[in-house]
């Protein structure tokens, strides 16, 4: 068959399946159309990408922050830009490309770390945003060091990498890229790179990190953001970021998005820094809800974190907040089947920052979490069903017991990937209404 006809057929088949999927309740249709397109035309990504876009794309990868950073980039590119949302395997990208009509002003795709080489070869993106590398789903992705080296294999087809200068695993592999732009944020996670990724020598951390063995060291940052959001480019002030989401990690995500868009489009980065913002997180991340069917109509704040680095970052936000604490853990394939990583999360520090010792452990692996929290000092209640756990939290919040008081009519929830998704999808049963201004979850 003529290659162009095959691509066209693949696209049509994908669109038909996407249309059909709309009539299946609870089915989001983000992956099936792409799977069909790739089955008909294995080179669908490169064929469709060459045809369907006026500009080259931006690819976002890394362990944490892919979905949120992609949302920042999309906010800068405009509402008609192509973008995937959370569905970051090749078929998720293919679904978006099939639906695109050829007049999109740009495209941004988040891509799972393990699929960067194959997707980058197909898309030949203008910019790769490389956020961070830490442990996540070791049962599937094997070891983080090998994964970082594999991402670098795609360097030949990528013009520019916008990368995190604080991450030794990225720096050790970035010299393969033709052009590297280094970005630095206010904080970092170092526990996955205590020995040098290049020579296994010892790494020392001060204001910058360095290997005592081979001399691998932190590159001078081209752009840097501090805790107040102030951005400097090699010492020159460029303005202040206000990304609309909490945490130092989101300041870094927003800055990397602005730099990537500046590189891909030629727009001045100073102007982009003033504009990079989202009204709320994607699919419930950093979301606030009112639970109207519960007697006390409490508010619920939902945080998603998938691995030790993500839990570390989110718990540092949650620790000081008033509210009934509820933590959810699953261990499905998408989460990683091994829950050992919860023992690397500093729940002892969380315990120290809370005004009350009580916590509810929930999700399919609540018992694993319960022992971890008991060891950290918490007074743990296990409720495996997340909806039932919410009911208990709502019943408890505002009340005082022997372990201390919990103020505010608020529940704080942090869950890992499938636990979080399950909770958000079940919120309707509790009459959840997203806070005004929040994006409605599709």
């Amino acid at each position, binding site marked *: 068959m003529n290659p162009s006809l095959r691509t066209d057929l693949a696209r049509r088949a994908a669109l038909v399946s996407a249309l059909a999927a709309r009539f299946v309740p609870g089915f989001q249709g983000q992956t099936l159309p792409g799977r069909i397109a790739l089955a008909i035309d294995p080179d669908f990504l490169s064929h469709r990408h060459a045809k369907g876009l006026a500009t080259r794309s931006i690819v976002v990868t890394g362990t944490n922050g892919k979905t949120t950073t992609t949302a920042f980039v999309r906010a800068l590119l405009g509402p008609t830009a192509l973008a995937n949302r959370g569905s970051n395997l090749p078929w998720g990208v293919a679904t978006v490309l099939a639906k695109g009509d050829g007049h999109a002003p740009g495209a941004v795709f988040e891509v799972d770390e393990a699929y960067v080489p194959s997707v980058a070869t197909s898309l030949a993106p203008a910019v790769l945003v490389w956020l961070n590398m830490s442990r996540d789903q070791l049962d599937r992705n094997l070891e983080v060091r090998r994964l970082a080296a594999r991402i670098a294999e795609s360097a030949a087809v990528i013009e520019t990498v916008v990368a995190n200068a604080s991450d030794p695993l990225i720096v050790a592999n970035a010299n393969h890229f033709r052009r590297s732009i280094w970005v630095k944020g206010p904080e970092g996670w170092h526990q996955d790179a205590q020995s040098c990724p290049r020579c296994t020598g010892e790494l020392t951390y001060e204001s910058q990190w360095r290997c005592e063995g081979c001399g691998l060291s932190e590159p001078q940052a081209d752009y840097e953001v501090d805790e107040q959001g102030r951005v400097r480019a090699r010492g020159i002030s460029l303005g202040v970021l206000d990304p609309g989401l909490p945490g130092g990690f989101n300041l870094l995500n927003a800055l990397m998005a602005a730099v990537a868009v500046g590189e891909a489009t030629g727009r001045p980065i100073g102007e982009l820094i003033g504009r990079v913002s989202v009204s709320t997180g994607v699919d419930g991340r950093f979301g606030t809800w009112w639970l109207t069917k519960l007697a006390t109509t409490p508010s619920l704040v939902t945080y998603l974190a998938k691995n030790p680095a993500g839990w570390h970052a989110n718990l540092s936000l949650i620790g000081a907040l008033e509210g009934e604490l509820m933590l959810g853990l699953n261990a499905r394939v998408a989460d990683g089947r*091994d829950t050992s990583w919860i023992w*690397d999360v500093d729940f002892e520090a969380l315990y120290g920052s809370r005004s009350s010792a009580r916590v509810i452990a929930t999700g399919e692996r609540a018992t694993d979490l319960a022992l971890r929290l008991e060891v950290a000092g918490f007074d743990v209640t*296990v409720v495996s069903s997340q909806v039932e756990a919410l009911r208990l939290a709502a019943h408890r919040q505002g009340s005082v017991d022997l372990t201390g008081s919990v103020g505010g009519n608020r529940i704080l929830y942090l869950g890992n990937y499938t636990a979080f998704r399950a909770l958000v999808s079940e919120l309707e049963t509790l009459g959840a209404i997203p806070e005004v201004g929040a994006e409605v979850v599709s």
Partner: protein
Amino acid sequence: MSVKIVSIFPEVLGTYGDHGNARILAHLVRRSGEMPEVVTVSVNEAVPLDGDVYLLGGGEDGPQALAARRLREGSPLHQVVERGGAILAVCAGYQLLGRSFVAEGKTLPGLGLLPIESVPAPKRMVGEVLSEPLIGISQALMTGFENHGGMTILDDGAQPLARVRHGNGNGDDGYDGVIHASIIGTYLHGPVLARNPGLAQLLLARVGITVEPSAPHWKLHHERCQDQIASLWTSRHR
């Protein structure tokens, strides 16, 4: 009485949460009414000689090679074993206590404290393990999560830790781990002492601590065992 728990190089031998074993032992020592002291030794520090329990965990190839190099430079662990000090070694930490292991394609010398050699396995071994302990602990089954690219061969006559009922363990012999002198070696993460309170009791009994683990600790053990038995039963009767 204070119990000194020495966690060896957790920043390089802690990729799979094995530093949790130190947290669990400390928790159990507190439960027994005694005082735990957790000493975290980093790669550029000397391993203290006066510890009560020593812990080594799993790590990636490069960090494993670094850890073995540092421990060989002036291995205090030989003295620890001579005086009968308890050692729990998991995965990469287990391999590097043997005569040799392979990291990043190179065969490297281990500490020679265990009668084992580790070689690359044909296929990476990842998943839940269910086994029956071959030592007297207060549980009939053990569970854990394995994730390793090497397999371990025991010398003739060496005593394995457990008989594997599901999963791989050492890889080739149907067993997991080894018990030799005062050392317990295993491939199980989870961490292994979170999943197996009986093993934690055994380690602490060796330093004179008698303790009953908490109900949530036993509940986790039972729940994971039941999950494994259920999935074994399903796979055999499908």
